[in-house]
């Protein structure tokens, strides 16, 4: 008898691929022999686009690199321009940015929790997670006028002073009990444990060798959180979530724990807002903005791993070259390794646990 293998297309329209990702799997029975991700369905040419736009024209588009965590890319881009111009942010603006980033991180993680459980066939947690995420999106809508692409950060400051602080208080009051609910429904659920425990083991060496960062790396036992050394987070006290489990369950648990870390940071931020009441900005005229000649690089801890931007300027109104580094791009490429030898029914659980989002991959 000759051995035959089956080629299976997973996606791009599969409901659990979080966007449009196509995985070409080679199967022997139900065992995966190889995996080849096919990306590019969402490619918008973000890097080429930048070369023909002024900095202020490009600013609203950077939210679209990751539409679930737009604040992070706004912050990253603004930060790089500020670095090039030698602007240091006033204290209040810095604290407001931290609060909004962490709110955005909570919203992003909540969506992931819902979508991941939906992948595994549990429908209710999706509605619960979306319900809590809705509170945050409503707040952003009130503050910025936008639910997803906020465009709230500008070079040297923010669009306007933060407001509706009682809404944040409300979110912080409600969320802990909801997280407890998630933990009761999900964390020790025997079906969930069977599908995620010891599945998709990611050894720290393999993670590093594949440039996997963020929560996925920390769930494999490596303490690398950029927020610790980030100047924006100066004065905030928190410790990164590092787990030793290496499996899909640990990656889930790490994200649940990160929700509490983010809430802790927001609480500190709100306290510090009371001490820094004067709202001043260091805005620049964006119409005449030219970056000095040189290369500028900065990075940030985004919800899906290390994100960085590189700008080369020749002293004109537009960047000469702009390059984004995003976390999901490397997580997708990790699937080539991580899925081999696993069974098809675990593939979705493993791919889902990495928190891949496709606009970030395709750029």
């Amino acid at each position, binding site marked *: 008898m000759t051995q035959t293998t089956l080629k299976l297309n997973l996606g791009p329209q599969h409901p659990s691929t979080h966007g449009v990702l196509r995985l070409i799997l080679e199967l022997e029975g139900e065992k995966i022999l190889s995996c080849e991700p096919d990306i*590019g369905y969402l490619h918008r040419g973000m890097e080429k686009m930048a070369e023909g736009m002024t900095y202020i024209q490009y600013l609203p588009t950077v939210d679209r690199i990751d539409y679930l965590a737009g604040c992070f890319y706004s912050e990253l881009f603004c930060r790089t321009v500020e670095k090039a111009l030698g602007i240091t942010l006033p204290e209040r603006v810095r604290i407001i940015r931290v609060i909004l980033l962490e709110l955005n991180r909570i919203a992003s993680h909540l969506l992931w929790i819902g979508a991941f459980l939906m992948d595994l066939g549990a429908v209710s947690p999706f509605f619960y997670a979306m319900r809590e995420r809705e509170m945050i999106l409503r707040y952003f809508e009130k503050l910025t006028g936008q639910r997803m692409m906020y465009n709230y950060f500008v070079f040297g400051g923010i669009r306007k002073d933060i407001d509706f602080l009682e809404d944040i208080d409300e979110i912080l009051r409600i969320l802990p009990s909801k997280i407890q609910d998630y933990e009761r429904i999900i964390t020790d659920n025997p079906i969930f444990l069977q599908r995620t425990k010891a599945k998709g083991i990611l050894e720290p*060496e393999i993670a*590093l*060798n594949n*440039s996997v*960062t963020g929560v996925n790396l920390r769930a494999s036992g490596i303490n690398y959180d950029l927020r610790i050394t980030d100047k924006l987070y100066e004065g905030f006290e928190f410790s990164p979530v590092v787990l030793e489990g290496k499996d899909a369950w640990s990656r889930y648990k790490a994200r649940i724990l990160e929700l509490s870390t983010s809430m802790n940071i927001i609480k500190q931020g709100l306290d510090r807002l009371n001490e820094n009441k004067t709202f001043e900005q260091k805005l620049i005229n964006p119409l005449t903005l030219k970056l000095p000649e040189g290369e500028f690089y900065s990075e940030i801890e985004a919800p899906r791993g290390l994100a960085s931007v*590189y700008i080369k300027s020749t002293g004109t109104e537009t960047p*000469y070259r702009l*390059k984004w*580094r995003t976390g999901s791009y490397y997580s997708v490429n990790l699937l080539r390794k991580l899925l081999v030898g696993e069974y098809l029914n675990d593939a979705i659980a493993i791919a889902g646990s990495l928190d891949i989002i496709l606009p970030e991959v395709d750029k």
Partner: protein
Amino acid sequence: MDLEELKTLIEQCELDGNKICIKNSLYDIVNILKNKYSYNLLKSITAVDLGDETELIYNLYSTIDEEDVILSVKVKNEAESIIDLFDSAKADENEIYDMFGISFIGNDDLKRLYMPENWTGFPLRKDYVQDDTRLAWNDDTDNA
């Protein structure tokens, strides 16, 4: 490890700000950095089209010493591949091939990534738009 120490390690190189510009084999230097100095994370590879040549910038990081190092090498159309050292380089090199048309010696798995398989031209090159006859404003035949 500070930059000056690294400079003595690498012969024939120049410091440009915090960037180390390499003149000889990149593979050997990355090999030393990874295996002797625990630079275990390749953050990214960036390509910049400088006109007649392309600059490749390698951002390496050590999670043990918590230090960054930036290497830079200028190439024409071919570069050395470092996929033996870092698996993630496959993804980076493929992206650079797709966008800049640089081929990496030692990486046989280069293919179109974002662009369709039959696409000609490399979008992030500076001469891309001027050369591409599929774009309406470059097509002379209709105007004639």
